[in-house]
């Protein structure tokens, strides 16, 4: 039985045993449910093997929402633990595990798939394409991300969670100080998901460069597509750094190499540097698509075209460039010396300039506009002041000498939540509500959505604003408790109250999905928001081929011109459409990657070798496979079009 001892949990607790039972029951329920309703074939044909960018987008979306709740439960546990001084709800070890997985899940397995959900669904539609450049690789990207997420999520019931922080700094993350397999999970799950993200990056750059509708020059692309383009360029340049860094970390942990150790020449600070050379661009990978979403929403609901299009594009490009030049500001206190710190302080503050330009452009877009306060617009308008607080505290943190006071305190925690939550989470919820009718053919309830917005906006501020004060007073982050004499108690309790309100807001969103699925009107047409970009020019829900004839574009807002000035958007005749075939390979290969990662986590070399070979065999199979896709006939297209038109108008 010794072989199986490695799978035991190093620090068990009743909560973890309860989670094991819950996971087991859920898996059984899914299997029984699929069998009982005879849905295995449907799931396989329509979802597991699909290469359609819209369906892949929806799968990303569902996964991201699931991970949001996993990460959210982690967050609630942290706030509950720190709600009162000397609380004994969680011990130090569990608190370490919870804040580590909270960070990893929220950044890598919630925010990333959420932006890829919207990019997948929206970008090909916005540029008038049939699909992405490499549909099958797109499916592979999704499934690799999904299996990476699953691998991390089983860690707390099989072998133990990572507990060295989401940054996993060495030497803490090395074998001496992190003896459980938790950090192996961290290395391998992020590696697998990261390969998927890198493939997506290549895929979207190619798509946006080569597959735009006739007439859509680069400077006529919608702003969300622009941000998607630049974001994926950052992905392609930043993710290989992470790949190598995780590889070296894995070799230290599994093979006794000395990259980041403190003996035999190893250099622990190298990890911090390499991690943040990826990690800071990663921040902009998350925020730039959010900026794109806000640009679309603010322009649509202010009934005005976007102010300062060219300066918007220029500021995105400048931000992406600067994002690679600021990484050291994450560890000003770790001994680089004044010259290096000064340089990085200046580059850090320089980022505030292009970001400020964008804020003013949004304000000028709203200026004298006929603003409609729909749910997406509420998030966009709420974002501007809250994000500005995050930005201003960011400049405070960027002053290297002052940072010695703020470093590793709750002030920092408050700062980055003030940027990430309005920046990314609000944007994703706004984008979700905005594009929901295009995805599913009905709107989410505005009434419930507005309630949810106010719960989230107020709950968020009540949760995180007190942390600025406790942080300035010296409350350290990542500490599982504090004494009553420190005086941090009342503000932390307030923070916990805010977290509960925030949780209620997310519960309202879930209820909204349920309520709207049951009761919302399906008769809303293809353009319910009276929007301006090409995705609204096709039917809702979108047919598999997206557009019956390719749109012809000659301005930034061709669809708007089409509606208001009778610009002929669709000129051509319907022709036969070539579409890619479905394939099971991406799913199967990702399942093998899951076993591969699991084998490495536990240093089980025989399955590791077998799965490695299996992955290459599948690649070889793909190389020899002949697959020219299929054609949709003109008759079939016209039938679909007539049906969709009849349903919509």
């Amino acid at each position, binding site marked *: 039985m010794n072989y199986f001892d490695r799978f035991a949990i190093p620090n068990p607790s009743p909560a973890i045993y309860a989670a094991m039972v819950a996971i087991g029951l859920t898996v059984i329920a899914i299997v029984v449910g699929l069998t009982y309703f005879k849905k295995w074939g449907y799931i396989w044909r329509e979802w597991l093997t699909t290469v359609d960018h819209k369906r892949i987008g929806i799968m990303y979306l569902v996964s991201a929402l699931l991970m949001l709740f996993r990460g959210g439960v982690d967050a609630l546990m942290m706030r509950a633990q720190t709600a009162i001084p000397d609380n004994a709800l969680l011990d130090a070890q569990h608190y370490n595990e919870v804040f580590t997985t909270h960070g990893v899940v929220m950044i890598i397995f919630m925010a990333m798939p959420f932006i890829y959900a919207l990019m997948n669904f929206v970008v090909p539609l916005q540029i008038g394409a049939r699909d992405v*450049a*490499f549909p099958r690789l797109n499916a592979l990207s999704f499934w690799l991300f999904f299996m990476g997420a699953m691998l991390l999520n089983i860690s707390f019931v099989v072998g133990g969670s990572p507990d060295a922080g989401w940054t996993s700094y060495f030497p803490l993350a090395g074998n001496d100080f992190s003896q459980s397999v938790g950090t192996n999970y961290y290395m391998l799950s992020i590696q697998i998901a990261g390969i998927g993200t*890198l493939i997506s*990056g*290549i*895929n979207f*750059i*190619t798509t946006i*460069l*080569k*597959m735009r509708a006739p007439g859509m020059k680069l400077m006529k692309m919608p702003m969300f597509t622009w941000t998607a383009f630049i974001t994926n360029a950052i992905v*392609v*340049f*930043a*993710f*290989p*750094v992470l*790949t*190598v*860094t995780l*590889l*070296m970390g894995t*070799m230290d942990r599994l*093979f*006794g*190499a*000395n*990259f980041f*150790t403190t*003996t*035999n*020449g*190893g*250099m622990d600070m*190298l990890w911090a540097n*390499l991690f943040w*050379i990826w990690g800071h661009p990663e921040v902009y990978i998350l925020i730039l698509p959010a900026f794109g979403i806000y640009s679309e929403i603010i322009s649509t609901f202010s009934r005005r075209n976007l102010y300062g299009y060219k300066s918007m594009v220029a500021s995105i490009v400048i931000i992406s460039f600067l994002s690679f030049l600021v990484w050291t500001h994450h560890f000003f206190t770790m001994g680089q010396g004044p010259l290096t710190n000064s340089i990085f302080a200046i580059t850090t503050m320089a980022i505030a300039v292009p970001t400020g330009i964008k804020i003013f452009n949004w304000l000028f877009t709203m200026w004298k506009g006929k603003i409609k306060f729909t749910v997406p617009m509420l998030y966009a308008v709420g974002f501007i002041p809250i994000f500005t607080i995050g930005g201003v505290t960011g400049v405070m943190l960027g002053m290297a000498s002052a940072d010695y006071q703020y470093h590793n305190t709750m002030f920092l925690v408050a700062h980055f939540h003030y940027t990430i939550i309005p920046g990314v989470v609000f944007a994703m919820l706004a984008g979700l509500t905005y594009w929901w009718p295009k995805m599913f053919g009905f709107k989410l309830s505005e009434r419930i959505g507005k309630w949810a917005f106010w719960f989230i906006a107020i709950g968020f501020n009540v949760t995180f604003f007190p942390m600025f004060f406790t942080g300035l007073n010296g409350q350290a982050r990542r500490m599982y408790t504090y004494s009553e004499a420190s005086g941090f108690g009342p503000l932390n309790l307030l923070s916990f109250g805010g977290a509960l309100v925030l949780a209620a807001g997310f519960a309202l969103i879930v209820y909204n999905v349920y309520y709207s699925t049951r009761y919302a009107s399906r008769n809303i047409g293809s353009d319910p928001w009276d929007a301006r970009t090409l995705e609204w020019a096709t039917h809702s829900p979108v047919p598999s081929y997206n557009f019956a004839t390719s749109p012809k574009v000659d301005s930034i807002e061709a669809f708007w011109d089409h509606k208001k000035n009778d610009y002929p958007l669709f000129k051509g005749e319907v022709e036969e459409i*070539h579409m890619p075939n479905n394939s099971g390979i991406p799913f199967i290969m990702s399942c093998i990657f899951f076993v591969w990662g699991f084998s490495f986590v536990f240093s089980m070399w025989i399955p590791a070798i077998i799965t490695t070979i299996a992955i*290459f065999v599948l690649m*070889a199979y793909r*190389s*020899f496979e002949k697959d*020219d896709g299929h054609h949709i006939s003109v008759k079939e297209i016209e039938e679909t079009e007539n049906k969709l038109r009849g349903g919509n108008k």
Partner: protein
Amino acid sequence: MKTDHSLPLEYSTEQNQLNILGFWIFIGAEIMLFATLFATYFTLANRTGTGPAGSEIFEITPVLIETFLLLTSSFTIGLAVHAMRIGKKNAMLTFFVITLLLGLGFLGVEIYEFTHYVHIGAGLQTSAFTAVLLTTLGTHGAHVTLGLFWGLFIILQVKKRGLTPGTANKAFIFSLYWHFLDIVWIFIFSFVYLKGMM
């Protein structure tokens, strides 16, 4: 699939053009990957701990053989693509086979080199320097190994299906990959071996 006959075979369909652009972007990512390895190498090159330094373990003869083999193979894969462009299938296949044999020779010498390092006490666990040395060389070597199988599959496909837009596209992309590995090797030769031996 529409085929445009005014373009070379490997560029003749829309999907082919996407594949080639996509692969160039992939090479961009690969440049970042090797750049990270080189940056790590330069950081750790003098951190030898109790292990040997580069000047003590590098030998010029096997490295020169490797360089000669790989640079020649880059020339022959160029000849293969040229033969493909003028439609000479057999010449193309011959140059492909020569390329892969040269690559195999390179790999053989590299494996010898690795066992030699481990033998003289410069293994993965010895020091930060040996770890990054073996990882950098190993990553390049793994790329070459993958390329050998990939090239073999392309030979089999060209043999069976002839020069079609599909197979020509694969062969052309393979040549980009192979040239790229050659360039990485030039950097390894200059900045790992020559610099280390000085």
